[in-house]
Structure formats: C-alpha cells, structure tokens
C-alpha cells in the first residue's frame, strides 16, 4: 500500500483519468495492433503460406543462390548485403550500395530478391532505390500494414514515430499513476466480484487486470517509447552531439567489423562452408546474414544465430569474407561487449517477446491483451460516469467505435485483402468509415454490441474466406496455418459468448467508477 497525501492522490487520479481520456483511444490502437503483431510470423504465414513449412530460415544450398544473384547484378551492389527471413518465412536478400542522387543527396540503390527457401528459387528480383523496393516487393503486405499501424499509426515519415513515442510516455505515466493511486494494490489482487453480484465488477475487472499486468505494461511502454523516440529523434540527435556532427563516419567506424581496408578484388569464400562452421560452433541455425564488401579482400561475413535456450540475446559470428577465417563472436551492437550495447540490445526481446519461441510469444500476447483491456475498460468507466454530462456522449460512441470497431475493421480488411488483394490503407479506412455509420442512429450500448457481433462474425468467417480464396486446407502440410484458423474460430466463439453473458450495464459502470 502506498500512502499519499490527499491532494497528491487526487492529482494523480486526475492525471490517470485525463491521460487516458486524451490519449487512451490512440493508445488502444497501438496496444491492440502490437498485441496482434506479437504473432506477426504466424499471421504472415497464415495470409500467404509457402507450399510447405520452412524448417530453417537459411536452408542448405542458399549460398549458391546468393552467389548467383551477386554474379548477375552490378558488382557495386556487393558493398552491403543483408539477407533475412520475411515474417512469412521467405528470404529477402538486399544487395546495395550508397550513391549520390541527381539532386545531390545520398540514396541507397540496389537489388532486392525474394527467395522461396523450400525450393531455393528466386521468386522476385527488382532493381532500384532501396526504400521503394521494400514497398514494391513484399510477400507480407497484411502484417506489414499491421506493424505500420502499430509503429506509426499510418502517419508518414517521422510523425508517426513521434506520436507513438508520446503514446508510449502516456502508457508509462498511466502505469505509474495506476500503481501509485491504488491504495490496496496487493490486497485487491484477487478481488473480483461475481458478475451481476455487485456494482463493483466493472471497476474490479479494470483494477485486477491492471494490477497483474503492471510490470509488463511498464516494460512494454518503456521499450516502446525507446523504439519510437530513439528511431525518430533520439539516435540522430545524440549521435550528432556525441560524434561532433560527423555521424556517418564514426557510425561506420564503430559498427563495421575491424578488418583493415583492402579494396583489391578477391572472391568470397564458400558461403556454405562458413554457414556450416557457424552451425557447428553454436549448435544453432542462422537467422540473419550481413556481408560487407563482397568481391573485395576486406570482405566480412557476419551471421546472427538463433537465441540459445535460456538467453535473451542471440550471438553474432564474424568471419573474414575472403579466407573464411573465423574472427570471433560479436555482441548485438558494437564490436566489443559493452553496457550500452547490452542495454540497447535488450530492448528488442523485452518489447517483442520473441526470445523463447511460442511460449514467450503467448505470454507477451496475454500482456498486450490485458493492456488493451485495461485501456478500454478504463475509458468505458470514465465515459459511463459522464454519460449524462453534456459533451461526453460522443466519447462513449467513439470508444465503442475504436474499441470493438478496430478489431472488426482489421478482420474485415484482412478478409477483403485475401479475396481482392487491394490497397490495404484504403480498405481499412473504408471499413472504419463503414463501421462508424451506425453510431449516428444507434445509442451507444447498442452500437457497441453491434460492433462486437460484427467482430465475432468476421472472426468466424476469416478461415472460410482464406480457404475460399485458394489457401491450403490440409493439416498435415501446414499445421501452423490451420492453428491460426482455429484461434480465429475460438476467438469468434469467445466473442459471441461474451456478448451473450449478462452485460455490464451503464448504471453498474457509473456506480463502479464513482466509488
């Protein structure tokens, strides 16, 4: 129990509420999409599966395929090569270099290839400016959209990152104030009155979910704010100050492998042999590959490996490209182990929860779900209490629209994309507009119920739509795809059941919030 002065407690309760009202709905969008994005790989595979499951990201025989791509393109693109699996398991290989554009500013130009790892064939290969290439050639359009909504709220450039960074701060503040203002935090951990038994059910549900979720809500908000602000303004500004303005040179010096510059031509060592050596040393499979200066004597090959059992961060193995000599194990960031590198490296597993396979993803999903629930239930408590006050009815409808309309809109977008394959942003905004229409003639409870019914029906229909649009059906070939189908069906049934149960009346919510 935390004892606060009466005025301080009032101030913090006010902050908790107003922060929620001002930013809660946008925060809910970020949290819900982030929760779904925990299963980005599974959803991407579900939407666009390969003919058979991919056993490893880098199958044997991938070396010669990469070599062929290098040989048939401009050798300058061997300057920097990145190979990494897309969310659906297909491999993306980017060969590129930095050039000066006609307008005089630096751009990245190269070749982006999409490789089917099951057949080791290049299914798509395009040349051009790198930024455009990633937009043009993607096998994971649906999850790219989901991630873009989570990271940038579909806003252009750095504006989206700035906004989600502010939302991360808001979530951080809500978690801290929620912790401080709740006087009986530990005493009330199991206090949840039976539905219909008490007017306090709604408030209890909000508090109980918030209490158990607190450490992870704090952590996800912290790491989320780090990613958004770090990417948008933090890193460029700090690097500018730290390196006295010469960011590019020092960044390259700090982050590139310590191999003396030697521009004389030299073929790259057998990639397959390097991969095998890395597998043998670690007992793990590759998850990413970076080759610098392909075709030169100072070429380097750096691989990221799977995260070993019990570890949070993966190891990176460095090889001399021309000779295949093993140069050592590198940390996630920087050339030497360091506190700063470790701290920054930790942000990814802590935010994404992808360090221990499906198990950690399920746990992270649960916390995302709890955070979304806490945000939405908090908003419902707030709006129900002020239902009769002028000017607040719109927020109640808005909460119903975003709260249940957003997942319904996402499901509708996925269904339309699977059948028609159209531009996702347009479909999403059209779906959102369509779902908003009934709010003009339905009162807010009925409107929320309608959206929940729609969500349930759409979730139940998604597997059917996927199958009718030509997706696979056999359990033996793609169990992952059918498992996602099953989750949608269960979620749809759960949604229907939750509507059928006795609803929490607005009077209950009003009483609960006023206590």
């Amino acid at each position, binding site marked *: 129990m935390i004892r606060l002065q009466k005025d301080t407690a009032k*101030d913090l309760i006010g902050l908790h509420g107003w922060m929620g009202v001002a930013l809660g709905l946008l925060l809910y969008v970020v949290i819900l999409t982030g929760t779904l994005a925990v299963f980005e790989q599974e959803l991407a595979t579900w939407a666009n599966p390969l003919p058979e499951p991919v056993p490893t990201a880098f199958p044997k025989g991938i070396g010669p395929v990469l070599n062929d791509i290098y040989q048939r393109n401009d050798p300058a693109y061997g300057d920097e090569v990145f190979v990494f699996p897309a969310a659906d398991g297909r491999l993306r290989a980017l060969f590129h270099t930095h050039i000066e554009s006609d307008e005089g500013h630096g751009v990245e130009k190269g070749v982006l290839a999409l490789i089917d790892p099951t057949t080791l064939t290049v299914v798509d290969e395009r040349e051009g400016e790198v930024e455009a290439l990633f937009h043009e050639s993607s096998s994971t359009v649906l999850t790219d959209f989901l991630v873009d909504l989570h990271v940038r709220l579909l806003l252009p450039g750095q504006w989206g990152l700035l906004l989600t960074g502010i939302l991360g701060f808001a979530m*951080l503040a809500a978690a801290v104030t929620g912790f401080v203002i709740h006087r009986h935090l530990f005493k009330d951990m199991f206090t949840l009155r039976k539905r219909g038994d008490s007017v306090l059910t709604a408030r209890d549900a909000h508090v109980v979910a918030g209490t158990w979720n607190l450490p992870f809500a704090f952590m996800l908000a912290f790491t989320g704010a780090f990613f958004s602000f770090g990417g948008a303004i933090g890193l460029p500004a700090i690097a500018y100050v*730290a390196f006295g303005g010469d960011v590019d040179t020092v960044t390259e010096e700090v982050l590139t492998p310590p191999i003396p510059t030697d521009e004389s031509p030299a073929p790259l060592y057998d990639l397959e042999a390097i991969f095998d050596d890395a597998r043998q040393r670690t007992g793990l499979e590759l998850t990413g590959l970076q080759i610098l200066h392909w075709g030169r004597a100072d070429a380097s090959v750096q691989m990221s490996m799977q995260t070993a059992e019990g570890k949070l961060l993966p190891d990176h193995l460095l090889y001399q490209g021309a000779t295949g000599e093993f140069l050592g194990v590198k940390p996630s960031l*920087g*050339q030497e182990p*360091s506190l700063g590198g470790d*701290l*920054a490296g930790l*942000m990814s597993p802590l935010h994404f929860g992808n360090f221990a396979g499906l198990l950690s993803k399920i746990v992270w999903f649960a916390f995302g779900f709890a955070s979304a629930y806490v945000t939405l239930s908090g908003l419902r408590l707030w709006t129900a209490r002020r239902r009769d006050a002028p000017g607040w009815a719109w927020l109640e409808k808005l909460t119903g629209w975003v709260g249940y309309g957003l997942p319904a809109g996402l499901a509708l977008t996925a269904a339309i994309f699977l059948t028609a394959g159209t531009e996702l942003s347009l479909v999403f905004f059209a779906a959102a507009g369509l779902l908003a229409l009934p709010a003009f003639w339905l009162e807010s409870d009925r409107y929320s119920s309608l959206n929940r019914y729609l969500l349930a029906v759409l979730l139940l229909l998604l597997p059917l739509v996927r199958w009718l649009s030509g997706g696979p059906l056999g359990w033996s070939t793609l169990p992952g795809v059918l498992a996602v189908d099953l989750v949608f069906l269960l979620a749809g049934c759960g949604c229907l059941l939750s509507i059928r149960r006795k609803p929490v009346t607005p009077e209950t919510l009003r009483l609960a919030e006023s206590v």
Partner: protein
Amino acid sequence: MVFANWRWPRIFLVGPLVFLSTFLTVCGASVYLPAGPARIDNVAIPLVLFPAIWALLFFYSYLDSRLIRAYTVVLLVLGANLALVLLHISGGSQ
C-alpha cells in the same frame, strides 16, 4: 491540487518543456558519459534512459505544488544541458 490555479502554465511545463528538457538531457549525457570499450556507451545509455528521465522530470514537475520552483528546476536542467551541448558542438569542450 496542482491544477487549482495556473492550469495552462502547468500544462506547458509538464508537456513541451519537460520533453525538451529530457531531450537535451540525453543529448548532454552523451557529452560527459565515457564512450566505453565499444565506443557506443555514450550514445546507447542515454538513449535507453530517455523514457526514465522523462518520467522523472514529468512526475516531479506535475506534483511539485510550487509552480515557480518546478519551472526553475526544469529550466535549470534544460539550460545546463543546452549550454553543454552547444559548447561541445562548437568545439569549446575539446
């Protein structure tokens, strides 16, 4: 109650001013923190601490009942770090 009087000056303090102050604090930290063995500590550590520094300044400036004192503290943090950053960039610290 912190919002009983001076609502907008308080909002200006806890919002834009605290954010700017946090931003300059992390930039300033990169000047005096040692670079470490990998030469990235002075960049990575302030970056990771960005949300923590913001939370600290935010709650302090929100809860301090004396608005003038809160402004003084936040502006001092801002001013000191701004001076440090400007000195460093202009080569004064070298």
